[in-house]
């Protein structure tokens, strides 16, 4: 059992948790994640370790309510417990002083990009962050991102805050302004990551994405998380989750992530129903 030390909403539907997990806190590096199972009947889902505090023995995770499990998680509060958390999993981000590094986070992707942005800064990079959201209310980690950035930009789809448009437009603007960019990290929805890869490809800018295939064990045992990178088969949970964006077969990833779409819907509806019953009683 893992105890939640603090729990706060960062935006509608996006919640940040600090959880007591000393072993993981001690070992984790940027780019790594945990597999977590909320309760006995729960599914194992992957969530990035956004931060950790070795002294306190805690890790921080930030979850967006996407379906049954993440919503169930987001209903938990300080003092509640989580059945299982295993980690840190995955290969840590490859960090070096690239020169100018752009870290792009779309939606909850900002939470995943944040620890790597911290590490890039520490390694001496000139760090530019682009944080994209649907609208002003959905912007997360603005202050945190600013504190590790030499330049920090926010973009919103509806223009309610910051740059009006997509993260890719902002990135293109930076490139067009003549800035020499040496490294791009992009984390967010699959179409966004693909779009970023398309923007940087003609300029030959090294671009890394963190992939989000469906995982079961997270230890390399099931092959459910396999992705195609440069025509090679890779297991995202052990070989990744970060890969060279210019080599990833995004369309295969996006197709494969749809396998349980009707089950996910049924599960979410059942959860909705259960909540309603709770509220009524």
């Amino acid at each position, binding site marked *: 059992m893992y105890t939640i030390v603090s729990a706060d909403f960062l935006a509608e539907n996006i919640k940040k948790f600090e959880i007591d997990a000393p*072993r*993981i806190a001690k*070992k984790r590096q940027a780019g790594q994640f945990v597999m977590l*199972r909320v309760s006995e*009947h*729960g*599914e*194992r889902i992957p969530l990035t370790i956004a931060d950790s505090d070795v002294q306190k023995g805690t890790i921080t995770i930030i979850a967006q309510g996407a379906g*049954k*499990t993440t919503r169930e998680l987001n209903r938990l509060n300080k003092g509640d417990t989580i*059945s*299982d*958390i*295993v*980690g*840190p*999993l995955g290969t840590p981000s490859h960090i070096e002083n690239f020169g100018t590094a752009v870290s792009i986070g779309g939606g909850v992707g900002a939470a995943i990009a944040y620890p790597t942005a911290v590490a890039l800064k520490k390694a001496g990079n000139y760090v530019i962050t682009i944080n994209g959201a649907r609208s002003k209310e959905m912007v997360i980690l603005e202050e945190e991102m600013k504190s590790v950035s030499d330049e920090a930009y926010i973009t919103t789809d509806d223009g309610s805050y910051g740059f009006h448009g997509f993260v890719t437009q902002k990135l293109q603007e930076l490139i067009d302004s003549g800035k020499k960019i040496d490294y791009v990290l992009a984390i967010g929805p699959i179409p966004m990551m693909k779009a970023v890869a398309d923007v940087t490809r003609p300029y030959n800018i090294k671009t890394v994405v963190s992939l989000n295939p469906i995982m*079961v*064990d997270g*230890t*390399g*045992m*099931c*092959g*459910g998380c*396999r992705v*195609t990178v440069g025509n090679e*088969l890779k*297991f995202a949970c*052990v070989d990744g989750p970060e890969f060279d964006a210019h080599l990833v077969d995004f*369309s*295969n990833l996006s*197709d*494969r992530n*749809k*396998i*349980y779409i*009707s*089950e*996910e819907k*049924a*599960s979410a509806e*059942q959860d909705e129903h259960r909540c309603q019953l709770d509220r009524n009683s």
Partner: protein
Amino acid sequence: MDNTTLTNKERMAIPRQEMPAQDPGERIQNFREVNLGYTPELAIKEAMRCIQCKDPVCIKGCPVNIKIDEFIDLIAHGNFLDAAKKIKEDNVLPAICGRVCPQEDQCEKECILGRKHKPVAIGHLERFVADYERETGNITVPEVKRSTGKKIAVIGSGPAGLSCANDLAQFGHKVVVFEALHELGGVLMYGVPEFRLPKDIVRTEIEGLRKMGVEFQTDVVVSRSVTIDELLDEEQFDAAFIGVGAGLPWFMGIPGENLVGVLSANEFLTRVNLMKAYDFPASDTPVFDCKGKNIAVFGGGNTAMDAVRTAKRLGAEHAYIVYRRSEAEMPARVEEIHHAREEGIEFLLLNNPVEFVGNDQQWLTGVKLVKMELGEPDDSGRRRPVPVEGSEYILPIDMAVISIGNGSNPLIGQTTPDIDFSKRETIVVDVNTMATSKENVYAGGDIVTGGATVILAMGAGRTAAKAIHEKLMGESHGFDEW
């Protein structure tokens, strides 16, 4: 009948006692165990078939040399609890081995009766006494020696790790088992389905270890959460045993293998067994909806049989085994093949997949198969299958399960460079002690042999325990006490 006065001729005249089983039509609707177990009467009758050979060759067939003649004699005399104790001198997991050992290739293959009649049902008898002991609540917790003050890390909780932990605890060592998953038991929990090995049996075995003082830590991936060096140096373990199994599923590398609906047997079985997806949505983890669908499993081993019979139970209309050789070459236990046939599994033997095909949404719709024929024997003496030209055809399927074996998980090797691995990615050990190239680190089970059997993994765990004990305590506390 008086057990002691029967002549050999009379004994051999008794037919082999059939294992009572759930009716096939009924059992494909549930996940309960297929075999129901002998009654005491059946067990005694079967035990009376054993002619108590002067040279019991059956023992040579058992990888851990259970005193088969002796335990069967005890059953024949109705001493079931003593029979259980006798088995446990050599095998700490009899309820499991009695169910899953490939007896026809081991003990029962050697049984002298098999030459003219059917061999004694050694596995069924072993299972019977183990179940009898458990169900009557007469399990004796083995005596644990006075604490030695030594602390040993066991990595992985499959049969290799559990049996190693068992013996080390008995020697008086403090044992901590580290398991990557949230459940203990290894393949016995996430691979082998409930209908072949009820999970309560595995849990009871683990409870027994807890009672002996063994500590279990789940959710720890050794090499990621903590490295072997950290265990030995910072956490002050005196030795470590690696029993992490063969965990990395192989794919076939043919076109279309990444279509939606193609998965490994490990994934399919883990979803159903470990994550209880058969109970979706009460359990949160989904599994491919097999109801009314056509499912093909590629392979011919126990894993393939488990996957295909699971698909049938999840409601598959057609559940196929696609295997490129003939039935004689199938590595699965004969009983599983027999049960699968009874359950309506369709066997496409001498068929090899060349390509998966899908629709424009990239969902699997079928597999292109080529028929094979057996050619000249190869170096191993097995007749090699060769494709029949022009025999390709498309079998319409909705889900494909790949079950062609497992390689080793690379994690331990990556973080412990001073452990030698073979070209086949297995850990190299001294077979007499299971010692690796790294001081005080031992290994056994599938990580050493590649995918093998429960009994071999268990035997390796025990060999390592003995060697670790000897190493830590010096010669004076060596083998004689064991």
